[in-house]
């Protein structure tokens, strides 16, 4: 009989063993309590993330209409092909196998892998715009590719293609840089966003709300359940966007420019600021951007010396030339420096001696002694040199600033660049030093040359004030309420007189007599801007309005390397004629919008 197995000892050890076992099991149990009860939420989330993949259900973008209800941008049924994968390696393997069925370039494979890395819980988009043929081939081989997701997704379509690109912009997949920005909070990788024009400006209204379909996947990324794993979140269609664009007029303008002309044109309703048409030539086909732009097309757009991606109405800044003489004239009238019938002390003999410099008039033969009215019609430089000197540098620059020549117009398009104009006399002091410049700059400024670069849009805006009661209209593409500020303090008689003077431009003896329209009094001003890139090929300007007694439309046309403003005037005249005559009954647009 061993002492260590004495019943008391055994009882004692049994009690110790039982207590230790109990403690161990209770400890294990409490570990489970912590995991299952206290951390339940976190693990449930992880478990759901394991099993569910979010397949985005893209919302159709808002349809964009012109003022008569014609479609500018709509959506066509399209397909995206994407792959779900548990990791990069298996994605690559699946893509390699997939490239045996459909043609995939190494670049496409790399792009899909990059997309996957950005959002591994969403299917990596392989083909953003798959053709029906590709989709049917893939459907046949579906079983071989367990992570394959074929999703109907509306794709953006512009029935008029390039004709509307200048203001509508285009859409494309959101970039990584954009995803990081506050403006794109809530966006997910792979979504289509507006990249320019109206598409970008009104992205918030046009995007709608993306829905989500939840598919269930297993540990190897195979789709186990296509639907019902969790209730789908349906996409929400966006509201429509109604614009002031007159699509017929827009098409006509595009036709006028054709393939050869290079420049920009804009037509505004001077009373409401409604943008009736806006075209920059040459332009691009926004439909080709949908679903990823082909590399060769992108390259050709970027290497084309005519810069199709550069908006010549909104981004391009050009010396306004003689079109700016109306600003000088308006300032002279406003400051009561001269009246429309006043002559200048020195008559035009083809040039003007200022100090030790001789400033030429474009007309070498000279215009003689003429009134302001006549000087506008014949665009006499010598007259405006003296008018500018009378106004004085300080007042001329301050006037230019108050006429908003160094501002953006505030049009609802994202591309607009601010126009350039000296902010004050300080500008010259800072740029050239206090003694580095002379009063001669007044002469250049007063005929729209020198330190003055305006967008086509800003010149059109300025002319809306001349076309009305001195109040400018902020250009707007989408129908909305706009404010109209008075920028020139002139009487309606003075404004009428200025328009009469401009009507002289397109009458016999004027600089653009050949642009006259039968039956309509056209008023406007030509401009020929020196081209710093090529002194022999000037830019041609014309900003005009009609009918002169109560203008319904203001048109600005600028032709790069167009030579004399007369060419631009002929284009503008055709645009105006078309708008006033063909458009029998333009839809009235009130100031308050529709």
């Amino acid at each position, binding site marked *: 009989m061993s002492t260590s197995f004495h019943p008391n000892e055994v009882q004692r*050890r049994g009690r110790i063993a039982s207590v230790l076992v109990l403690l161990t*099991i209770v400890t294990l149990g409490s570990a489970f309590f912590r995991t299952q009860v206290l951390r339940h939420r976190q693990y449930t989330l992880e478990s759901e993330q394991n099993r569910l993949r979010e397949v985005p259900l893209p919302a159709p973008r808002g349809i964009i209409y012109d003022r008569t209800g014609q479609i500018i941008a709509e959506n066509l049924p399209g397909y995206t092909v994407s792959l779900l994968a548990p990791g990069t390696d298996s994605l690559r393997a699946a893509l390699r196998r997939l490239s045996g069925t459909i043609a995939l370039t190494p670049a496409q494979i790399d792009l899909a892998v990059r997309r996957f890395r950005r959002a591994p819980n969403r299917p990596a988009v392989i083909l953003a715009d798959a053709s029906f043929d590709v989709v049917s081939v893939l459907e046949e081989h579906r079983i071989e590719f367990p992570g394959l997701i074929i999703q109907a997704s509306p794709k953006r379509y512009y029935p008029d293609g390039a004709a509307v690109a200048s203001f509508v912009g285009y859409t494309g997949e959101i970039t990584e840089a954009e995803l990081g920005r506050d403006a794109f909070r809530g966006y997910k990788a792979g979504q289509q966003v507006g990249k320019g024009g109206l598409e970008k400006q009104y992205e918030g209204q046009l995007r709608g709300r993306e829905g989500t379909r939840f598919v*269930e996947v297993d540990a190897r990324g195979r789709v186990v359940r296509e639907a019902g794993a969790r209730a789908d979140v349906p996409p929400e269609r966006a509201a429509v966007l109604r614009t002031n664009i007159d699509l017929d007029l827009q098409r006509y303008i595009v036709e006028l420019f054709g393939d050869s002309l290079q420049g920009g044109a804009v037509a505004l309703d001077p009373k409401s600021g409604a943008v009736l048409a806006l075209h920059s030539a040459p332009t691009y086909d926004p439909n080709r951007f949908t679903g990823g732009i082909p590399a060769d097309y992108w390259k050709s757009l970027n290497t084309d010396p005519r810069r199709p991606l550069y908006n010549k109405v909104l981004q391009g800044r050009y010396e306004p030339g003689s079109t700016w003489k109306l600003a000088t004239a308006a300032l002279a009238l406003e400051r009561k420096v001269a009246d429309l019938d006043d002559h200048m002390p020195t008559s035009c003999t083809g040039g003007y001696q200022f100090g030790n410099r001789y400033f030429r008039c474009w007309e070498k033969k000279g215009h003689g002694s003429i009134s302001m009215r006549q000087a506008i019609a014949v665009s006499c430089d010598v007259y405006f040199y003296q008018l500018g000197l009378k106004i004085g540098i300080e007042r001329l620059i301050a006037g230019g600033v108050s006429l908003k020549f160094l501002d953006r117009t505030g049009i609802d398009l994202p591309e607009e660049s601010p126009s350039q104009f000296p902010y004050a006399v300080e500008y010259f002091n800072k740029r050239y030093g206090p003694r580095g410049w002379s009063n001669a700059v007044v002469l250049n400024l007063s005929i729209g040359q020198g330190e003055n670069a305006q967008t086509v849009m800003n010149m059109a805006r300025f002319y809306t004030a001349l076309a009305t009661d001195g109040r400018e209209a902020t250009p707007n593409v989408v129908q909305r309420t706009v404010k109209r500020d008075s920028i020139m303090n002139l009487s309606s008689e003075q404004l009428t007189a200025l328009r009469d003077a401009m009507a002289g431009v397109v009458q016999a003896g004027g600089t653009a007599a050949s642009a006259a329209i039968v039956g309509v009094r056209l008023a406007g001003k030509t401009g020929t801007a020196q081209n710093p890139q090529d002194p022999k090929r000037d830019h041609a300007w014309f900003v005009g309005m009609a009918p002169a007694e109560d203008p319904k439309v203001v048109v600005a046309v600028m032709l790069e390397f167009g030579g004399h403003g007369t060419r631009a005037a002929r284009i503008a005249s055709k645009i105006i004629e078309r708008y006033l005559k063909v458009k029998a009954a333009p839809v009235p647009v009130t100031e308050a919008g529709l």
Partner: protein
Amino acid sequence: MIGRTLADRPLAALAVLLTVFGIAIVYSAGQTDVVVPVVARAWQRQLGWFVVAALSALLASRASVRVLEWSAWPVYLGGVALLTLTLAFGSGAGTAASQKGWLTIGGIRLGQPSELAKIFVVLMLARVLAARREAPTSLLDLWRPAAVVFVPWTLIMLQPDLGTGIVFIGIFFCMLFWSGVKWPLLVLAASPGISLVLAFSTGAWGIWFVMLVALVIWYRPYLWEGIALVVANVVSGVIAPILWDRLQPYQQRRLLVFLDPQSDPRASGYHVIQSQVAIGSGGWFGKGYLDGSQKRLAFLPAQHTDFIFSVVGEELGFLGVSVALGLFLGLFLRTVRVAQRANDQFSSLVAFGLGASWFVHVIVNVGMTLNLMPITGIPLPFFSYGGSFLLSCWLAVGILLRVSSEGRGRAGTFAM
């Protein structure tokens, strides 16, 4: 006879409940979205094995404890021979493909001898420990029981099967405790192993070493024993890094992942994380029987064997886990009771040893699912799919039933 065998109805009932629970979970483990036929049919084979195991248990319960005591030596020697054969001709399988754990003849896997080894080691240890009048008081006294465990342990570690190795060590110390070995001697015996584990942190090992020296001075073993202990601890503290280098890469990975499962979530740590996610997402009442998404979608590894308890946690929640742990607790307490009431030292030690084997399995396996224990790939008694293991568990049940029926209604003196 059966009536007498089933005298300990609570014990038999607990074992049956655990097995039925287990087969139900094995069935659920096979219900996956992408069906793996072998796993899907596992429950049928497990049911078949249960019949075989229950019959074997009945058979085992008919053998007197004296027969077991007498047969301990031949069974032990035969078992060691079998383990040697396995090492020579064995093959791997399933998740442990690189281990030679299966005895295979003509391409047919007969079973895993290491599962049966747990039983014959318990029998042999009981015999050796029961042969002493007094509990061992010095390390020298421990050489026989140590040798009994060391031989099969070495053979199993050569397979290599770290998990079963850990179980053997657990059985060894539990049975030493039950035989009456005082706790300081247990600590001293375990000290080289503890040193090995702590060797990775110099500070921890330093503190441990000071405590050990204090214990040696206080317990006063033979002088040379004390010196040997100190030397052994220094050696294992120093050679540990060398041993580390000799570990298989997967073993190193598993140990590292045990220390920091987030370190490589897509590789080894992935299993533990997915198991925790499965259990944690179960909540109070689980996702419903058969409806565990982690299991269904193959996020859980080895969901019908090593990680079967994660399925319990995911589908039946904290409630199901509590029931399972409660059943195990009942089984362990009942086993301790059987050991307390056994007629003689040998029976008592056998009963306690068998219970200890289950206990170590449960702690290591269940602890593993929550990352409280390293992933050693040892199965959960009565739950994990596997014929040899279920058979081994039920042989143990049979022996326990026999010991219980031979024991007294209440604990008394042993008739020697």
